[in-house]
């Protein structure tokens, strides 16, 4: 059976609830972490198919979380999409250098764009949209 798990790492409750609603409606199985430490545990235990990662998080920054995911043999191949409102060239370059698949600036997209992005890693034919 196809892994349909999407891990959203986001400390803003409003934003994470919107992401969860939209992606669940599109048929994905949403799991959520609000800080880096919980997120790394979840990545290890749940092995999500795609990770949406915010950068400004409490305690550990998203860049540090990304670095740890990508330096672990078991998790380094999980696609990570950085999803933040930071978006200066140096932030984007840093994220891509650390191994993120893509850098998406939250305020420039609508959630349909995120669904399309996730679909690239979990094709929709594998998703139950009932």
């Amino acid at each position: 059976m196809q892994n349909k798990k999407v891990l959203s790492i986001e400390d803003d409750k409003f934003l994470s609830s919107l992401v969860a609603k939209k992606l669940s409606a599109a048929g994905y199985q949403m799991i959520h972490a609000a800080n880096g430490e919980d997120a790394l545990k979840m990545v290890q235990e749940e092995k999500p198919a795609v990770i949406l990662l915010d950068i400004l998080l409490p305690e550990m920054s998203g860049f540090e979380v990304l670095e740890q995911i990508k330096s672990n043999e078991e998790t380094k191949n999980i696609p990570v999409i950085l999803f933040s409102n930071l978006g200066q060239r140096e932030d984007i370059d840093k994220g891509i250098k650390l191994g993120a698949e893509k850098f998406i600036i939250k305020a420039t997209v609508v959630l349909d764009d995120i669904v399309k992005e996730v679909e690239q890693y979990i094709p929709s034919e594998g998703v139950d949209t009932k």
Partner: protein
Amino acid sequence: MSRLSFHLISDKDNTSGTERLWNFTNKQSDFVSMATHQIKTPLAGLKWTLKMLLDGDVGEMNAEQKEWLQKSFDSNERVLLLIDEMLDSIRIDEDKFILSKKEVDIAKLFSQAIQVLDPYIAKKKIQVLYEVNPEGPIIINADAEKLVVAFQNLFENAIRYSRAGDKILIRIEKETGDVKVSIKDSGIGIPELEKSNIFSRFFRASNASHFQEKGSGLGLFIARGIIEKHGGKIWFESSEKTGTTFYFIIPTT
């Protein structure tokens, strides 16, 4: 500004990830960058919610409800754009505008940038003429993303201050070692006494302020910053009620 950031950092003893990102903060643009991030987070939430409501994701709306929601969505988009423009203008001031240059076909790049504004062009029934001389690719070494911002700011201004049904002529010409771009409108023009202020931040000409269209007053300041950062220059010719032509040249290498 740096004093404020110091207080924010020193509020807590144990440094979090967010606060550590604050620690390099000693410039206005860094402070504003962080502040805009914080403002954009709830605005992104608002944007996504309004879009879900408009798309009927949480139940169908009637036409009038949709119309008001669309206005709210557009208004929120304007705020987000204004925030980005303010941040860009501060980064230009502090010379922190970093270019990432590569070879681009400026003729194709600007043709695509025009297409993005198709709905606005159609709404105002503007006729756009696009001339490239010589025809075909014109390759320059530039930051494509930023150059498009500069071009769109000038082009949007031309549309904004044109009357319905007017023509806009965009010309791209290759000169020795440079590319020259001109954007000519037949709109409201710039009053003679105000010409020297036109590239100042937040300046809007008196006839523009009275015109129905909204503008932030940052577009030309940013456009000039981007062109000059590329080693180019920007200027204009204008007469009130007749129209304005903006020109810029940038080196090809």
